[in-house]
């Protein structure tokens, strides 16, 4: 009677304990892979941020050394002109060096003087010069200046360097000895590194800051936003609300989706060939940078805008059309205001993307070494990510610290922008 039933079927499912156990072991393993993958990603994120923060937090403070400078009238303004231009010409380097020598009254061998001077920043003379030019009354007095230590000494104090006499160490034992003595005399302190936020780029790490790059970033993003917001909204409205369904609009749609996935460096090449070489826009300037970034983020913003418009229910449109509003009035008075939070959220996220972008800006020359903070849209300037790229290339340990700190500044801006986007979304989130 059972002849027609295959043996395997008659046997039924194999629900033996051993087999079920094996299947569940596989199950547990599979689950573990998933959890492991997520853990890996999170651990990496922690390591990445941890490395940046541990490398960079110390850049927000700087070592300064008290230097009592004798503003000798004979050396600075022998004729007593009090004329700022004359004063500025004076040999402040010599003035500073005399003061440094006087820190060690027992005298130092000539060969060691270079080592001694090396404890102080090259910029010390400019600090003194600036203060004296601004206030000529100081001439003839002795003033205490907290001047920046040289980067190597700063690194030594922060524990990133070890002094040695092996010829390769950046600080030798003699120099460390001088430094230790100054420290013992209470002449060394650590203070907040204002230079980092008030200076533009410099070859000397202790005089370099992110202000120039930040101003450049704001200008570039400003140009970008000014272009991308009206154009993006107009394009999104047209494509979502008015465009007829035909080949041409299909092409636009496919084109926008593909453009969103084109490598950013290609936009840089476009900027170089068209904006710089054809239209003759100035190189390295926020104007060209903003236009390139605008073209880069435009597709993203159009896509975000369209989905925000799509989320507005048709009943709203029907209601407005029903009372005799024109299609454009309907969109302008009812649909757009309701979609605006979504569009703005998308725009902020797009701008955050633009803020982190550097490759296309390299192409249009925003890698220039710019010592001045830009004042107009056509000045040569750089932006934060590119500044990071430039500093990352510098070999000094002090620049590693500053690169990491600049990254922290960049990340703070990104976090703020995303926070605004999230809050905006929370506040205006609607369930239809």
């Amino acid at each position, binding site marked *: 009677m059972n002849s027609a039933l295959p043996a395997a079927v008659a046997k039924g499912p194999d629900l033996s304990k051993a087999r079920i156990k094996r299947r569940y072991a596989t199950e547990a393993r599979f689950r573990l892979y998933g959890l492991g993958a997520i853990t890996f990603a999170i651990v990496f994120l922690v390591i990445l941020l941890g490395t940046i923060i541990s490398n960079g937090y110390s850049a927000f403070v700087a070592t300064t050394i008290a230097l009592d400078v004798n503003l000798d009238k004979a050396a600075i303004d022998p004729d007593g002109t009090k004329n700022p231009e004359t004063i500025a010409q004076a040999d402040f380097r010599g003035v500073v060096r005399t003061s440094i020598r006087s820190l060690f009254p027992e005298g130092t061998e000539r060969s060691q003087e270079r080592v001694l001077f090396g404890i102080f920043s090259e910029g010390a003379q400019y600090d003194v010069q600036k203060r004296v030019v601004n206030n000529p009354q100081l001439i003839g007095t002795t003033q205490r200046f907290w001047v920046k230590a040289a980067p190597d000494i700063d690194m030594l104090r922060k524990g990133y360097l070890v002094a040695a006499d092996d010829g390769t160490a950046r600080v030798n034992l003699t120099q460390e000895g001088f430094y230790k003595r100054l420290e013992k005399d209470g002449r060394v302190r650590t203070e907040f590194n204002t230079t980092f936020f008030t200076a533009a780029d410099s070859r000397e790490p202790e005089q370099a800051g992110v202000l120039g790059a930040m101003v450049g970033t704001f200008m570039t993003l400003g140009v970008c936003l000014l272009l991308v917001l009206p154009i993006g909204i107009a394009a999104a409205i047209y494509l979502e609300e008015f465009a007829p369904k035909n080949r041409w609009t299909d092409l636009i749609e496919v084109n926008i989706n593909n*453009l969103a996935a084109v490598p950013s460096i290609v936009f840089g090449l476009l900027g170089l060939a068209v904006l710089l070489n054809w239209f003759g826009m100035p190189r390295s300037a926020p104007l060209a940078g903003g236009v390139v970034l605008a073209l880069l983020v435009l597709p993203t913003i159009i896509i975000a805008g369209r989905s925000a418009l799509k989320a507005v229910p048709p009943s709203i449109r029907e209601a407005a059309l029903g009372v005799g509003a024109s299609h454009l009035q309907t969109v302008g008075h009812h649909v757009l205001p309701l979609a605006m939070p979504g569009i703005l959220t998308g725009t902020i996220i797009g701008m955050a993307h633009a*803020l982190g972008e550097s490759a296309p800006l390299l192409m249009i020359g925003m890698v220039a070494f710019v010592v001045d903070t830009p004042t107009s849209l056509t000045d040569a300037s750089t932006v934060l990510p590119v500044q990071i790229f430039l500093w990352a290339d510098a070999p000094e340990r002090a620049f590693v610290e500053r690169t990491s700190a600049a990254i922290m500044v960049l990340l703070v801006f990104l976090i703020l922008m995303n926070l605004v986007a999230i809050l905006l979304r929370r506040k205006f989130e609607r369930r239809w």
Partner: protein
Amino acid sequence: MNNLIFIAVVLAITALAYHYGRRHALGVVGGKARDLHSLPGYYGAYVALWCLIPAMTCAVLWFLIEPLVLKQMIVGSILETRPGLSGDEIGLAVNEIHSLSINAYAFASATADKKALVGRYLEIKSIGSIAMVVLAFALAAAGLYYARKMIAPRLRARQAVEKAIMCAMIVCSTIAVLTTIGIVFSLLFEAMRFFAHVSPIDFLFGLQWSPQIAMRSDQVGSSGAFGAVPVFAGTLLITAISMAIAVPIGLFSAIYMAEYSSHKFRAWVKPILEVLAGIPTVVYGFFAALTMAPFVRDVGQAVGLDVASESALAAGIVMGIMIIPFVSSLSDDVINAVPQSLRDGAYAMGATKSETIRQVVIPAAFPGIVGSIMLAVSRAIGETMIVVMAAGLAANLTANPFAAVTTVTVQIVTLLIGDQEFDSPKTLAAFALGLVLFVVTLILNIIALTVVRRYREQYE
């Protein structure tokens, strides 16, 4: 700065025209707005647009053709001082004058007759600008006059204004298309100039890449070698390494989030993964160069391997991690699109969760997953900062992940950074590489987006 003033003045005139038009329309009907066809504001906008559009069209047209006009006009002056120049040389001379005119530092050290030419150039330029401004204001006045004459109670001002707004919106929506066209043509144009120096066959199939040799034309070995195969191979090697990291980890994360995790876990972990996607690539590049590359080298040396300090492995690993959230969020969407009924079918057979996922969900989502991976590959190929900062410059043709290799994007950046003559094969080679990069990523994207779209339609 002058441009900004011009724009501000035009906008101010427009605002005045708006008020004027509105008042005039109300005046025509004696203040009774009901007698007008449209709201008074539309008449104001009508007049304003008649001012703004002619003036701005004039300005934009001038902006577009100015370079051509300037070039034509300065060529005559150049030939006067230096007769008998060939076409190429004229082009070079024009470019030089142009760059001298915007670079005061270079101008100071230029020769006297060049200074004269630059002066002539700037003179032409300012005459042109003044002519443009005069023309623009004349057009604005004409527009104002015409629009004022047109204002009448029966004028369908709203329709006219709406039509103008529609046109503006259509123009905006074509900018994306124009961008693509701009990319294609600028890359093609510059690449063609490159291929006039180096044959496409040599470029695409040559095994020797050393463009940096040709620094000066009188230098020995000035020809340079432009065989891009080692560059392509390096790109593929780093892309392969990054995919080996990103695909399994991204996919498993997506599976865990879509199928296993609780709502709460997901609400916490998904944003954290998105942070990985939001970190600028320059940060990854810094990490790759500063931390990952020495780490990989030390580990390699500890097990007795010879690892380059700019190894493909370090750059590839970091790039892979950057792409994890990309793969995971795309795959997450794709996996969520698989209908629940298929899972139910498998559960009802007595399948465990992992059996359901491996044997039913993943096969069902396969096309979508392949599409996501292709998009990720396209992204890895086009990624620039990580490799610029952590990969090598020398083009080695090797499959050894511990060796230093270079990539297409690294070469584009190194060829174009710095001040070289724009017309040398060396800089033009960057555009040829850019063209290859664009074409390859475009093909990948088109296929991937089509696959993903088809896949979605299947389950909708």
